[in-house]
């Protein structure tokens, strides 16, 4: 019986976390391969619906990461993002969408090791939580019978 391999989607900002992830690679640090990284100019650009859509398309976990506060390449993008995340997380939690499956972090361009750590701990945590079947079932209306 093959062990469950979580599918993780990572929404990261170009200037900090993406560069940091690059550093992880050039530093030859090995880390879990379950993550698909999507590059954004800034965390401020991350639409909250993208996270929900990821779950709808089969993601078991999500990582959202960007520049540390005060270090945003666009000055205040991550401040706006932080507020948005606070509100969105509260809403998801109230709706019963598993917020443990979303890991938010600040990873700078110099924090190659931290990125590896974020990914590894997230993958481990999701592996323990299992596949996100609860959400997949709701999103799986396509497989239901013709009468919706």
């Amino acid at each position, binding site marked *: 019986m093959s062990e469950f391999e979580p599918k993780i989607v990572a929404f990261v900002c170009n200037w900090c976390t993406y560069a940091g992830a690059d550093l992880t690679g050039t530093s030859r640090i090995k880390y879990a391969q379950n993550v698909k990284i999507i590059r954004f100019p800034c965390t401020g650009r991350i639409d909250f619906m993208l996270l929900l859509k990821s779950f709808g398309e089969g993601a078991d976990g999500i990582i959202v990461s960007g520049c540390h*506060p005060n270090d945003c390449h666009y000055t205040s993008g991550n*401040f706006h993002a932080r507020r948005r995340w606070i*509100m969105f997380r*509260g809403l998801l939690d*109230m709706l019963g*969408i*598993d917020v443990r499956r979303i890991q938010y*972090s600040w990873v700078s361009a110099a924090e190659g090791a931290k990125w590896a750590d974020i990914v590894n701990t997230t993958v481990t945590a999701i592996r323990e939580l299992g596949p996100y079947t609860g959400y997949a079932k709701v*999103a799986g209306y396509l497989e239901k019978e013709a009468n919706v």
Partner: protein
Amino acid sequence: MKKLIIKAASLLETNAVQVVIGFGKGSVDRTRAIFITKAADCEQLIFDSRCIQNLAVYLTKAEIKKMGKPAIVAPLPVLRSILQLAAEKQITEDSIIVLGVSPESELVELESLAAIETYLSTKQIVIEEKYQTTIETIKAMPVSERFAYWVKELEPCFKCYACRAACPLCYCTRCTVENNQPQWISVASHSLGNLEWHVMRAMHLAGRCTDCEACYNACPMAIPIHLLTKGMLQDVSANFGTYGPSLHRDNTLSSFNPDDKESFIR
């Protein structure tokens, strides 16, 4: 009420306004929004506990704006919406005249937006005990049970968008759901489509909603979607301080504090 009718009629007579938006007799035992253009018709204005529709929704409608400058009968929920609309630059100082109605159904003369803000500062938005209890009960459920609860509650939703249409703060001429490049939110009323719509609605109202319950009152299927907006209201209050419309403060999600606190970002 008499004072309100007299005031409204005089505003029309002197052409200070061209239309009075207020409540009048509706079907059977309901009330409805009425649009009075002749001073004599102001006699039709009524106000009682049945008048729950939020009239501020008409202030951003093209067809109503075309009628000219309006005077609007404004009980508390309407006043809050007016202030929020003003904060969002949808109405300006001289674009409307407000016929305030106090919780005791007395006419309140509010000559300016600043006057409205002062008046409302003594009437903070408070989430009723019964809703606080319901929200707490929901939050106390284990995650999967909570999810099942909402999927079931949202099941009757058939995407009529009455909630959106009735909300004074949903004034976008083209809503996100009405764009199909991309079709971001599913049009269909299956479980996922309903969930995504209500998530989006709650988020777009986060920090802006004034708890008027127009959404719930409008819903033909009586779905308690106002629980979501009330929950968001509580979150804004808890995370970013006291909550309410103001001309001196940017919307919660349009602004930030470098010292915003959270517990979940590594």
